[in-house]
């Protein structure tokens, strides 16, 4: 070992000094170049995903954000809706605006795997929940949410999630507080049953929350917030706020 170091030192001293400086500079430059690229690429992403159960109002929201109205209506989506545009409500604003890349992923359970294709490039996820027909679908929604919260990509990159209680304009819609509490309860139940088969469940990479305590969204490493909206009437201000926070204009 000592001999090796000695030999290397001798060899280094033998080279002309300029060459060493040049080599060093090139190395430094390349490292900094790649480092910069890496950092820049991360923060450049302006993709937002719209996910949720089938029938929660994602496609309506997509067209509301894009065109300001859901046109003639929607049916169950068979394919994702993909668009890069400036939010409709901001078209009146002057100045250069950063367009948002919005992807509406179908909620039908057979098409769920499509979500995994889009997650690596996304800056944020909007999880849409039907606040009108909430209780019958509560378990399914909680399962979907749990699956998302425990995905490796979401946890590692701390992708923020907005739980959006859609259809809030209807009289019998539940309040967002109620929905939040119900979801937390359901996810808690899932936590205990899923962790029992943690070695088996290849899909769930991480465990949520603090064991022993009831689950709450504030315990997640990534930011999880709850908001209300109404896709049909156009009450989407909270959504736009979320998007603007993530995609800097």
């Amino acid at each position: 070992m000592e001999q090796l170091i000695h030999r290397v030192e001798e060899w280094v001293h033998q080279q002309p000094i300029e060459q060493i400086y040049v080599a060093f500079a090139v190395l430094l430059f390349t490292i900094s170049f790649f480092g910069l690229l890496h950092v820049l690429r991360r923060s450049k992403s302006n993709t937002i995903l719209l996910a949720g159960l089938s029938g929660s109002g994602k496609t309506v929201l997509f067209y509301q954000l894009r065109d300001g109205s859901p046109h003639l209506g929607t049916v169950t989506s068979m394919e994702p809706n993909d668009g890069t545009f400036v939010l409709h409500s901001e078209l009146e604003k002057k100045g250069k605006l950063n367009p948002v890349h919005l992807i509406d992923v179908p909620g039908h359970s057979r098409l769920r795997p499509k979500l995994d294709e889009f997650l690596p490039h996304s800056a944020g996820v909007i999880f849409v929940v039907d606040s009108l027909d909430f209780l019958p679908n509560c378990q399914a929604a909680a399962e979907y949410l749990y699956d998302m919260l425990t995905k490796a990509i979401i946890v590692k990159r701390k992708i923020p999630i907005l739980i959006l209680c859609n259809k809030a304009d209807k009289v019998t819609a539940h309040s967002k507080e109620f929905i939040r509490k119900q979801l937390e309860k359901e996810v808690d139940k899932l936590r205990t049953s899923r962790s029992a088969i943690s070695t088996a469940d290849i899909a769930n990479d991480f465990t949520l929350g603090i064991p022993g305590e009831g689950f709450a969204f504030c315990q997640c490493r990534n930011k999880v917030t709850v908001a209300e909206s109404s896709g049909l009437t156009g009450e989407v201000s909270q959504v736009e706020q979320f998007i603007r926070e993530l995609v800097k204009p």
Partner: protein
Amino acid sequence: MLDQLLIFTRGGLILWELGSALKGSPIDALIRSCLLEERSADAAFHYDAPGAAGGAAYTLKWAFDNDLGLVFVAVYQRIFHLLYVDDLLAAVRREFSRIHDPSRTSYDDFNETFRQLQKEAEARAEEMRKSKQAARVPTVPKKQTNGSGKQRNSGSGGNTSGSGKDESDGDPGKGRWLANGSSNGQGDDSKDNSRAPSGFLKGKENGAPEVGAFDVNKLQKLRSKGGKKTDTGGVGSKATKAEPKKNVKKNRVWDDSPSESRLDFTNPVDERGEEPLKVVEADRGESMMDKEEIVSSESESEEDVDVENGKPCTKKKGWFSSMFQSIAGNAVLEKSDLKPALKALKDRLMTKNVAEEIAEKLCESVAASLEGKKLGSFTRVSSTVQTAMEEALLRILTPKRSIDILRDVHVAKEQGRPYVVVFVGVNGVGKSTNLAKVAYWLLQHEVNVMLAACDTFRSGAVEQLRTHARRLQIPIFEKGYEKDPAIVAKEAIQEAKSNNSDVVLVDTAGRMQDNEPLMRALSKLINLNSPDLVLFVGEALVGNDAVDQLTKFNQKLADLSTISNARLIDGILLTKFDTIDDKVVGAALSMVYVSGAPVMFVGCGQSYTDLKKLNVKSIVKTLLK
């Protein structure tokens, strides 16, 4: 007469609609149960709107424009037999693709064009009908009396027989007949449906939905029929042939039987002698359910070799032009291009032990979704078809509902009742063995299991379960032989409630799907006890028979059910996976396609640990290799 005509994108936005509001949500039902289930090659879809009074029955027909990603759907009342719908849909598609623009979202100017097209289509249909009536021989009365009720009187509006599916059989037959324009003079026998060339309709119907292969319409109807007794001959001509045989067959001797003592060969002394064995057997290590499966990524070279064989067949247009087109990426996929590639795929699927009808339907559905699409540059027809088929298979095999049994067990536990699983299947598929494996797996996750021996027919069945129970050290509820299984199950569940068992696994006797009294007994068991999970146990070795088994099981469970929402098969347990060569895994696909139920477990051996989950990606890869 059309209730509604809708044009929407595959992403879900409605571009144009004309018509009154519909009761219920037929379009969503169409998408969910038909188009997403790879049944887009069916001729029509029937929908019964749920409703107290005035629940309307609709028929839906559709057409695709795969290039622009549009779907055209026509909805009309089932009692009308509109003959011009297919014609109209094709015309609408042609016209609309001309004015379609991706950035436009409203097409009000299309109203005028549509009215024009509708008038033309109606006029054409009228002409056809008149010319047919003039040239026709008067209908033979015998057609009316066919038991399955498939025939329709051409002159009158149509038989309104009990089950709506009969109407659909007549309607496409008519449509096909019209398109050909020639008058066979034979009327629309159901046999003619298969003989007449089906140039017009999308996908060959050929009476296929009637003969054995599963029709999603039937599954829906099965659920809603309840106690209504329809003629079971409606399922297929096979069934009608079987019926007279059933009457002749002697009933199995259930009641006046040899006394119990003759069957019960266990020696009370032996029970104590078995003790040391139980300690050895109970702990066999981790069940394979909990082990991650290592999927080997195979090289793609094998696929290319197979693909090369398909290529020479597509060289009809001239070698140079087709090559050029594939590079430039402007070739539009025609049905003739797809045919050879699809045939090759179908043969490949069949060599992997997929039932023939299923392979046929799948290929047609993929064809329906690819027709008219522009080929991307540098892609060959066969590779496009391959990717489409792979996606379709992945979609079918991905479970629609959660297969997390442990979570359901916890839910049931909270509600204070035991979770009941019933294992059904034909003889000799491995119900008792796999029941023990599932019990072992559940025990490893700290769930209290109890076995219920409701196989009171086969000699040694109760002893078999008793041995398993002793090895696993779990309670077993048994009443010996020659007892009514439904009552035994009921008492077992009550016992489970009292001794705090979380799960009750009920073993039933194997029975053939054609055996009427046994199926009745099974249906009684399920109705009486309303289990949480009805698991159909099927062999991986089985071939085309799997389709028949599952259809008939579902049919019988629905027909003989007393409640309105019949319990059908909820999950599939695939057994003897280790006996088949890895290359013949197609039985899984046939079973899932036919019943819509996910594969929850796969049995791959005879010891307690040989139970695993189905790895969807590896199955798809093996199927398409």
